[in-house]
Each structure stands twice: as structure tokens, then as C-alpha cells.
């Protein structure tokens, strides 16, 4: 089993004297790079973005729930993002998301719940011990990765909020702020991004309220400061940069479902047998692999979640 934990200690901190001379080092590096380029030696693209960066989060435990597979590189996970609030390309969110202010940030808890409230992001971070979960991540576009997320099960938070008996679904909404999210200035999707889960899906122990990645604070392009990860569903089911959780009676009208109901259902469960109308879902390309691999039913989490859908027509679960 692959286990990953933060392996930096205080002693690993760069000495201040060296830190203050960092620009000299960069200049030296630049001179070296120009020299190498002149000599025709190929250079790695944008060196430096290869290693995890950002504030370290303390995690209590690490569980690899990706069959022991090694996580996809930090660089790939943080530079290949579908985050239409910033841009519709995969590369641009990493360039544009820096402007997003993740402090202060509040998550509004509304609807059929005994304790409606506003929770600040720092309170969320302190609410439960943080864990690391290594999950498979499967995009509806037939690519996938393995991601070490940091957070805690969403169900723990929901239990504390005490939903009423009328709460059958939970609706999530992403921040709506075109000033910070340039993608929202065009009507590529209906904003704000809205997603939803059935209560039992939201309470499933796999459903993860996520605040970090690779032991660090979640990078903005990955949905900072807080997002939901549902590993047996296609990526679009996982709302990013959420500001609202509303407990409701009716099945939420989710963003992609409104956009193309025949292509993106409410459930969005990973299913190799149900193709997207425009492409096959039978196989996927893990980022970093050359060949495609077979897609697993429920993205490999059938043992944990197939029971949620007993008696339902699996063809309606895309």
C-alpha cells in the first residue's frame, strides 16, 4: 500500500540567510538556463512547479483507496483542471485562479436543517481531524488521475448540522463572483455552478469534504478553499469553491444536467457500460499513462456504494 505523508519538519525549513539570497540563486539559475539553451541542452518545462507547494496541513491518517496506486504528479493534478469559472481550457485555471481570495470565506448552511448557520473556512479546518485519502478521480471526458486529498467525511459535518426529516437532497453552490472568476463573465454555463447529492450519497463515508491536496492547502485551481469529492462519480459531480450547502426536498437542478440533460444526468456515477453520447466510457487514460485502461464500475468503489442504487435502473445512473 502506498502511503504518503508530509515529510517536512521544521529543520527542513530553508535557512533565512539562504532565503534572502533566493533571487541571486534565480539569477544564477537563469544564467545557467540561457547557457544550457545556447548549448542546445533541453530544459525541463517550468522547473519548480513539479513539487507540492503551499501551507502544510497536519493530517491524522492516510488511507490509500485507489488500490495502492501511486498518486498522479502534483504538477499534473494542479495544471490540468476543468474549472469553467476561470476558463474552459485545462491549463488556464492554474494561471487565473491565483486572484481568488479564499480568506475570509464562509459556507452558508441553509434549508431543511435544524442548525442553519454560516461557517468560516478556518472553523471548517478545525472542526474535525483532517485525514488524507488517496482516491481515483475519473472525469466524464475519459481521463483520470489518482489524487491524495485532505479533508474529512462530509457526513460528519452533516450529522452535526442535524438535517430535518424533509431533507432528501443536499445542494451545493460554487462562489458567484465574475470579478474574481473571469470565466463567469461568459455564459458557457449557468452560474453559479450547482451540484447535488441524495442524502444517503452525501452521508456515505467515501464522500469527502476536501480542503487540501498532497498534504497542503488546496490550490485555488483545484477548488479552494473547500470542495466536495465523490470518488465513484464523474468529476463534474464534485463542486469546487463552495459557498452554500442547502438541504432540500426536491432533486436539485444541477448545472451540467441543465446544460445537456441527455449527456450529464443527476447521478453521474462512473459506469463503463453507459457511454457518453459522443464518446465511449469503457476506457480511460490515466494521466501519465500512454495506453487507456478499462474503466471500473463506480470507479472501483462498487463494494462501498453499489448498495445505494439497489433496485434502480443502472442505465439511468449516468
Amino acid at each position, binding site marked *: 500500500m502506498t502511503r504518503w505523508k508530509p515529510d517536512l519538519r521544521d529543520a527542513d525549513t530553508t535557512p533565512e540567510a539562504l532565503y534572502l539570497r533566493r533571487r541571486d540563486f534565480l539569477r544564477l539559475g537563469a544564467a545557467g538556463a540561457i547557457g544550457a539553451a545556447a548549448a542546445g541542452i533541453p530544459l525541463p518545462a517550468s522547473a519548480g512547479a513539479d513539487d507540492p507547494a503551499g501551507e502544510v496541513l497536519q493530517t491524522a491518517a492516510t488511507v490509500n483507496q485507489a488500490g495502492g496506486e501511486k498518486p498522479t504528479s502534483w504538477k499534473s493534478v494542479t495544471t490540468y483542471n476543468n474549472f469553467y469559472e476561470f476558463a474552459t481550457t*485545462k491549463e488556464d485555471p492554474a494561471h487565473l485562479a491565483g486572484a481568488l481570495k479564499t480568506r475570509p470565506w464562509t459556507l452558508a448552511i441553509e434549508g431543511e436543517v435544524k442548525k442553519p448557520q454560516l461557517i468560516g473556512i478556518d472553523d471548517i479546518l478545525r472542526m474535525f481531524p483532517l485525514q488524507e485519502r488517496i482516491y481515483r478521480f475519473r472525469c466524464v471526458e475519459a*481521463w483520470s488521475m489518482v489524487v491524495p486529498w485532505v479533508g474529512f467525511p462530509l457526513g460528519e459535518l452533516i450529522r452535526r448540522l442535524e438535517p430535518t426529516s424533509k431533507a432528501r437532497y443536499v445542494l451545493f453552490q460554487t462562489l458567484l463572483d465574475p470579478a474574481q472568476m473571469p470565466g463567469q463573465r461568459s455564459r458557457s454555463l449557468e452560474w453559479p455552478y450547482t451540484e447535488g447529492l441524495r442524502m444517503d450519497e452525501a452521508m456515505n463515508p467515501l464522500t469527502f469534504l476536501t480542503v487540501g491536496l498532497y498534504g497542503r492547502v488546496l490550490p485555488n485551481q483545484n477548488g479552494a478553499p473547500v470542495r466536495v469529492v465523490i470518488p465513484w462519480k464523474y468529476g463534474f459531480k464534485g463542486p469546487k469553491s463552495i459557498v452554500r450547502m442547502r438541504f432540500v426536498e426536491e432533486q436539485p437542478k444541477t448545472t451540467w444536467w441543465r446544460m445537456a440533460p441527455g449527456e450529464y444526468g443527476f447521478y453521474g456515477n462512473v459506469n463503463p457500460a453507459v457511454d457518453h453520447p459522443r464518446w465511449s466510457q469503457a476506457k480511460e487514460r490515466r494521466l501519465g499513462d500512454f495506453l487507456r485502461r478499462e474503466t471500473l464500475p463506480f470507479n472501483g468503489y462498487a463494494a462501498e456504494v453499489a448498495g445505494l442504487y439497489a433496485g434502480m435502473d443502472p442505465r439511468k445512473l449516468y
Partner: protein
Amino acid sequence: MAPLPPKSRTAQRWIKPVAISALLLPLAKIGWDAFAGGLGANPVEAVQNRLGFWAITLLAVSLVPTPAKELLGVGWLQRLRRVLGVTAFAYALLHFLFYVGVDKFFDWRTISTDLTKRPFIMVGFAALLCLTPLAITSTDGWVKRLGFKAWKRIHRFAYLAAALAVVHFVWRVKADLRRPLLFAAIFLVLLAARLPGWVRAARRR
């Protein structure tokens, strides 16, 4: 202002080799980026997209010389018409071969389903099929064999290929239609630019 026609002999001699080299640059860039790790997290998708982008772009560019001559009196671009069209076809063919041999890695079952049941792939393939006879008949010999009139008529399939390529592009994206619609607009302008010429030709007949 139309660019000045290259009058000198040197310019005449160099225009084609220069154009061919320029048209191969996108391919060279793909090769370089593949070598230097510049294709991002999903290199297969990146190459596939770039080949498709250059196919549709060069198809548009190949439709410029004729209206440029008819409407603006810029004749020298005519010399590039064939090389532009053939390179557009070459990029389209590479785009398809890359899909078969790399993206799907000869997974014939998926490929045959794609080509028979998925309109997104079918229209892309139809665009390639439209361009194939044009590439084959692009030689002087074929122009003579067919006669210029028939040859011209056949080569109007380029506009059908353009329409199919735009539909393929529209179906490729999930929500953001700006780029495919930009190509649709460009092709419509290029088509409209041919209309005065066609009307004149029809009146003469």
C-alpha cells in the same frame, strides 16, 4: 491594404519552399514539445487537438487565395493554393491516424463503434473523406484529365468539408462554443466572398 506582390524572380522562386517550411512548423513544434515535455498533463489529447486545430485552420487559409484574387486583385497567393490545401489534408489525415494509432491504440471495436454510431466522430471522418479526392486530384495532371471546369466543381467540396469540420468541432467541446463558432464565421465569410464571382460566372453562361 493588400500585401505587395513579390515581383522579383528570387521572391517567385522562394515563395513555395518558404510556405512549405512555414506550414510544417506546427508539426515541428508538436515534435519539439513532445521531446521537451511541453505538451502538458495529457500529451495525447494535446497532440490530437493541435493536429485538428491546424487541419481546420489551414483549410480556412486554403480558401483565401481565390477570393483574394477576385475581390482584392491579389494574384500571387494563387501559387500557394495547392500547397495550403494539401497541407490541410495532411494535418486532417494525421489527426485521424493519431486517433486510430495513438489515442485509441488500434482498439478496432471502439473505433468502429465511433465511426458508425457516434455523430461526433462520423462528421469528422466525413470531412476527411471530403478532402481526400481533393488531395488526390491536386496535381496538374488531374486538372488536365478532368478539365478545369469539372475540377473546379469537385474542389468546391472543400466548403462541405469545412462545414463538417465545424460541426465536428462544435461537438468536440462541452460548453464553450466560442472557438468552433469563430471558425464557422470565418468559413461563412470565405464562402460569401466567393458569391460575387459565382454570380458573375452564372450570368456569363
